[in-house]
């Protein structure tokens, strides 16, 4: 029996060959069960342990309600190399119940391993995968007399399977349950042991060898964080000292983490009555001199559109996080889509520039949040930082940021002239808040500064901040606001690039789809098809200079998880040429294997310019879900 080696074939393996076993450098494990079965916590322990052991890890969590009976899953990908996606299909699938089996089995890699609780699951069509019965329920309830520790038993089994050093897990269990007393810790230790033992006793050492993944050398300065956590950490690192927000999935964590962190650095978090108020408060706090931020998802951005215009017009520095989810309207609060680009870039009446950044990875969530604060301060403008459900929910092991090397930007402030300090009354009126400058950036007086009094405003205004709706003022001030963008684009963070720069095919994309493109390019390279990638992290103003080379290629492919190709539209408005758009819009990330197919088609001349629509999942869409027959459980979001 052959075990698929994800080093070469996954995530594209469903469509490629399954080669013979060699030393494995990556493994994808999916644990699926009922929503309430608490699979997330042990999953988190596992990845933390794996990371400590020197693996790169990247996870995915699918909340219930997309699939029959409210099954949810937690997926972990481990590797000795840097990972960019969660992996299209699991190599190992652990199912707690029959429903979990039914909806997940089609995605198991051919030759993969199904682990199941024989009391709960009766596998069918077993020819294309290997089997391991693992009586979790029985071990937990009968042997340990603690049904609740079933997940920790499973955790032990997993750890044994890919031969993780169990000492790390014992440490983590202690750290986690210490506060609940020694009895709890001991019970969990026992459950862990039982799980490890069961797998060691029932899986042959040859088979175990097959699941062994080569780790890196254990590294100290690494951490495992979700994109949202990274964003919150980035905010603290970027100097955030004021936050106002309103809860919304999938952005709420950012706010919750900052609620704990900000008071520790003398900062304040306000839970506002809605998103409009949240951004209004952020503007007020920034006017008062703070580094202020809010976080939300699509519906919140939609509500903030008017207030965002005020931030641009009053030239107020602020950071707005958009953790994108699938829309439109309330849409699918726990599902993925790159559907807010138009809104973030163009949402607003009138000519209302702002800076928009987008994260391609969890690491980006940290660094781009810092960049967002820096750009907001430098250009005195709102900066929208876009993440998406994929990056904000998934966890990744990333190098611990080096705080000392972070560059922190502060806004250009106005200081009163020497004599102003004693006779500020006379200087009133001399200060020009919106002074015309070559860069468009004007020094700002922080309230409390004598002589700097001015009125921040959303009306068109002259340099002194007085409403003047004449043609000259509006023309020049419009140009001033856009001139800041011309300069900001030169501060664009480096884009993600990958692949062969001399290739004929360029992939141009943004957000988490960049990771999918990286893996697709690597798989294609193994087939002898070369392509290169550029994924800018600044989306607006669009850094044309970063795209010029790619846009000169024979084929330009723009894959996105949305219907219209929103980024493709932006790119085409700026580079008048034909491109191939690749879109998927089922509320799930693009799969690497699908992108591989589509790029191959272009390379081999089977696909010209235009639009290619992908199926959002592996396997037969119709078989996988029969939405009319089932009841969607309440997804809490």
């Amino acid at each position, binding site marked *: 029996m052959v075990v698929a080696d994800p080093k070469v074939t996954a995530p594209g393996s469903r469509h490629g060959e399954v080669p013979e076993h060699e030393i494995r450098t990556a493994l994808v494990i999916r644990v699926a069960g009922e929503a309430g079965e608490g699979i997330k916590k042990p999953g988190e322990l596992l990845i933390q342990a794996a990371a400590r052991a020197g693996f790169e890890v990247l996870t995915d969590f699918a909340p219930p309600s997309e699939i029959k009976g409210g099954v949810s899953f937690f997926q972990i990908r481990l590797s000795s190399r840097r990972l960019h996606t969660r992996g299209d299909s699991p190599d190992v699938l652990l199912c707690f119940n029959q429903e979990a089996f039914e909806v997940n089995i089609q995605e198991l890699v051919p030759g993969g391993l199904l682990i199941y609780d024989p009391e709960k699951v009766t596998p069918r069509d077993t020819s294309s995968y290997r089997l391991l019965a693992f009586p979790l329920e029985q071990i937990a309830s009968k042997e340990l007399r603690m049904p609740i520790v079933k997940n920790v038993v499973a955790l032990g089994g997993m750890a044994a399977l890919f031969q993780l050093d169990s000492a790390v897990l014992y440490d983590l269990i202690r750290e986690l349950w210490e506060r609940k007393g020694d009895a709890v810790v001991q019970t969990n230790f026992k459950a862990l042991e039982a799980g490890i033992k069961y797998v060691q006793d029932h899986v042959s050492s040859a088979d175990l060898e097959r699941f062994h993944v080569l780790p890196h050398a254990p590294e100290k300065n690494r951490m495992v964080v979700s994109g949202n956590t990274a964003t919150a950490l980035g905010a*603290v690192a970027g100097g955030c000292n004021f936050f106002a927000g309103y809860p919304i999935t999938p952005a709420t964590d950012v706010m919750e983490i900052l609620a704990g962190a900000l008071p520790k650095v003398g900062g304040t978090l306000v839970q506002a*009555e809605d998103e409009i108020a949240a951004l209004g408060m952020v503007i007020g706090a920034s*006017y008062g001199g703070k580094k202020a931020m809010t976080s939300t998802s699509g519906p919140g951005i939609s509500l903030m559109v008017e207030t965002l215009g005020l931030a641009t017009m009053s030239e107020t520095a602020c950071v707005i996080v958009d953790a994108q989810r699938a829309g439109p309207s309330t849409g699918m609060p726990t599902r993925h889509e790159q559907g807010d680009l138009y809104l973030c870039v163009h949402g607003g009446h009138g000519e209302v520039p702002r800076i928009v950044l987008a994260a391609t990875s969890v690491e980006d969530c940290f660094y781009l949040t810092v960049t967002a604060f820096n750009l907001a301060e430098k250009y005195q403008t709102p900066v929208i930082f876009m993440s998406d459900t994929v990056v904000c929910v998934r966890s990744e092991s990333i190098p611990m940021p080096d705080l000392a090397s972070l560059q922190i930007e502060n806004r250009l402030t106005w200081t009163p002239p020497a004599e102003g300090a004693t006779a500020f009354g006379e200087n009133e009126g001399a200060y020009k808040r919106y002074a015309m400058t070559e860069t468009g950036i004007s020094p700002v007086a922080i309230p409390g500064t004598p002589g700097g009094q001015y009125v921040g405003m959303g009306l068109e205004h002259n340099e002194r901040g007085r409403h003047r709706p004449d043609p000259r003022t509006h023309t020049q001030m419009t140009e001033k606001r856009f001139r800041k963008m011309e300069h900001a684009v030169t501060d664009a963070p480096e884009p993600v690039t990958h692949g062969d720069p001399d290739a004929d095919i360029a992939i141009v994309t943004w957000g988490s789809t960049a990771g999918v493109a990286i893996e697709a390019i690597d798989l294609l390279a193994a087939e002898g098809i070369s392509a290169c990638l550029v994924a800018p992290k600044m989306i607006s103003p669009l850094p044309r200079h970063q795209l010029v080379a790619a846009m000169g290629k024979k084929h330009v492919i723009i894959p996105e998880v949305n219907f219209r190709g929103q980024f493709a539209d932006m790119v085409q408005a700026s580079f008048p040429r034909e491109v191939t758009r690749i879109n998927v819009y089922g509320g799930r990330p693009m799969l690497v294997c699908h992108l591989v197919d589509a790029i191959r088609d272009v390379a081999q001349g089977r696909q010209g310019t235009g639009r290619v629509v992908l199926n959002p999942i592996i396997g037969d869409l119709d078989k996988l879900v029969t939405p009319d027959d089932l009841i969607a459980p309440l997804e809490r979001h």
Partner: protein
Amino acid sequence: MTVDLPVRHYELDDYKSDEKPTWCPGCGDFGVLNAVYRAMRTRNFAPHEVVAVSGIGCSSRIPYFISTYGFHSVHGRATPVATGVHVARPDLKTLVFSGDGDAFAIGAGHVVHAMRRNLDLTYVIMDNAIYGLTKGQTSPTSGIGFHTATTPSGNPEQALNPLALAITCGATFVARGFSAEPAKLADLILEGLDHKGFSFIDVYSPCPTFNKVNTFKTYKDEVDWLPSDYDASNAANALAHATSEDKRYLGVFLRREAPTYAEQVHKAHTGTEADRAKVLGGMFKRYS
């Protein structure tokens, strides 16, 4: 940021900006502006330590005419912006201004919460029972049956009672003034500024251009100052006087004490800016 300065005495003119008020002749808002100048002079506030925040409306232009810091925000959002300014900078005095539309139509949701939070803000509503800036439509404080172009058969909505709302939602200082009596109005604003917590001051500030029903003249006939023995410590009493059908009372309806929002959130601070690297390092550890 704040520079140490020798104490200076300010004159009324020090509070006037060089932008001349552009309201229609006879507009009630002139009286409010004068009262604001006077209140600030009485406490000798340094103009650079005051922030005047407003929404959009004729009345909301007021920050342009005051020499302090100011923010002329968007329609209905005066209180959120002021909340941000104040929570971020409790060392400054933050005054908020709205028209009746700005405060009670589009802004109603925010006003309710600002009061509930007992933010230390002084909120002056220049209430002319009309939308002045958009040329005269029915507002939430316009009476039932009021005729305008948008309510040609008479306003079908009962007027909102701003004072009753403030008393119910937790404002800790609730008063009403009249722009025809700027000296007394200045006293109310002054008391509001001195009060620790949310001060709500509704001001009858007639719009002679568009509201021909609620005029200086009609208000003069209808208003009366609260009796001298009035007890402002009692919410039920305040409500009874605020909803009185025979008189439009002026004066301080309610004064009460409650912890302010900023006090509480600042009390919860367990560190300062200096701790940032340490705190962050600790968080990194937790995830490793």
